[in-house]
């Protein structure tokens, strides 16, 4: 009898904990599957789906310039995944990728000892870690980005934190990104507050804002696969895989936080601060949406 009771209790506890554990990402998983499904369907056959998804693009243009069908992994190339002229141009540019120069700088920084003799390797013995960022730190009760992790490493070793967005921090992240190539994004939602952070990021992504009253969603989900003049709008699926990115318009490497801040600004909003809570939550949500996709950063964009 006692044995049975223990057994039942144990089973209840185990199943309970499974249920409890799974509950934090139930909604996120549902969102992610619908998100992926939307893109897979949209880019399966743009000619056939022209009326539904691309009403303002002629079948002629689709046939000439669109690449399809796209597989899940193809989305890692952003706007280059579906738009042939962009893909061809960047394939040419990447014959010798411009990011190679800042990446080399990053590799030098990586091995250059701090004042205390340690290096970045002291903090990151395994460099292939980018697939886990951003993560929700249960102890700190907040989202931690790769940039913050780099600066944390510096501060722990008595160095000044680096300025976010570009320059040395982007170079260091590029080194980590290169080492993480091919790893699948694996963002987790470990507790209720993490789920809240995810929800906040999700809202920031879908809710219209700024004097243009548009959302990230309108450009990068609903209008992905369309053009605004010469801009081939990138699908939000796979939007974080190739970071940090060398942008020709920046003339150098920039981080995901920089890119996201710019994106929010383009809605006609005040530019949010990099590594601010909302912008990190947006990164958390957006990266979660690409869970399972292989990393391919750093890369080159316009």
């Amino acid at each position, binding site marked *: 009898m006692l044995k049975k009771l223990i057994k039942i209790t144990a089973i209840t506890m185990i199943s309970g904990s499974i249920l409890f554990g799974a509950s934090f990402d139930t909604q996120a998983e549902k*969102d992610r599957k*619908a*998100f992926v*499904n*939307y893109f897979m369907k949209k880019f399966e056959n743009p000619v056939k789906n022209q009326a539904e998804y691309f009403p303002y693009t002629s079948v002629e243009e689709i046939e000439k310039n669109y690449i399809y069908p796209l597989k899940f992994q193809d989305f890692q190339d952003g706007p280059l995944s579906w738009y042939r002229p962009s893909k061809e141009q960047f394939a040419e540019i990447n014959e010798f990728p411009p990011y190679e120069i800042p990446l080399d700088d990053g590799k030098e920084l990586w091995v250059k000892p701090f004042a205390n003799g340690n290096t970045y390797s002291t903090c990151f013995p395994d460099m292939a870690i980018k697939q886990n960022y951003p993560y929700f730190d249960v102890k700190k009760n907040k989202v931690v980005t790769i940039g913050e992790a780099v600066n944390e490493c510096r501060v722990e070793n008595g160095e000044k934190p680096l300025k976010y967005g570009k320059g040395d921090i982007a170079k260091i992240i590029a080194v980590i990104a290169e080492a993480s190539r091919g790893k699948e994004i694996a963002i987790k939602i470990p507790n209720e507050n993490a789920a809240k952070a995810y929800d906040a990021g*999700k*809202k920031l992504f*879908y*809710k*219209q*804002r*700024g*004097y243009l*009253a548009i*959302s990230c*969603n*309108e450009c990068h*989900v*609903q209008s992905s696969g369309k053009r605004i003049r010469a801009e081939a709008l990138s699908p939000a699926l796979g939007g974080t895989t190739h970071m940090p990115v060398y942008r020709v318009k920046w003339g150098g490497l920039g981080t995901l936080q920089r890119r996201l801040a710019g994106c929010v*600004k383009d809605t*006609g*909003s*005040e*530019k*949010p601060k990099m590594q601010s809570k*909302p912008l990190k939550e947006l990164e958390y949500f957006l990266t979660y949406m690409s869970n399972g996709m292989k990393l391919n950063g750093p890369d080159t964009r316009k």
Partner: protein
Amino acid sequence: MKKLLLTSIIAVAFLSGCAMTSPSASNDVDSAIASAQMKYDKAHSEMVAWGKTKSLIKKAKKLAKTDPKKAIALANEAAYQADTALAQSEEFEKTWQAAVPK
């Protein structure tokens, strides 16, 4: 006496005419700027402020002494932007979920 009355009428007409040509929100430069600042601060804290609002207030503050009329116009424009930003945020709060792929 007649003359005084006439002067007062003219003065009143002048004043009211002045009030009529000013934007309705405020005609006092300091209060216009203060009001814009308050509204902007609220929009900013809710992270919904528009891109140019802050710089409009900054410009208004700069012109407050030299060109109060323009400063008021700028402050009122900033206040309008902040108001609209807050109002649209409230509106979109009700509808954004509909855009999530299901």
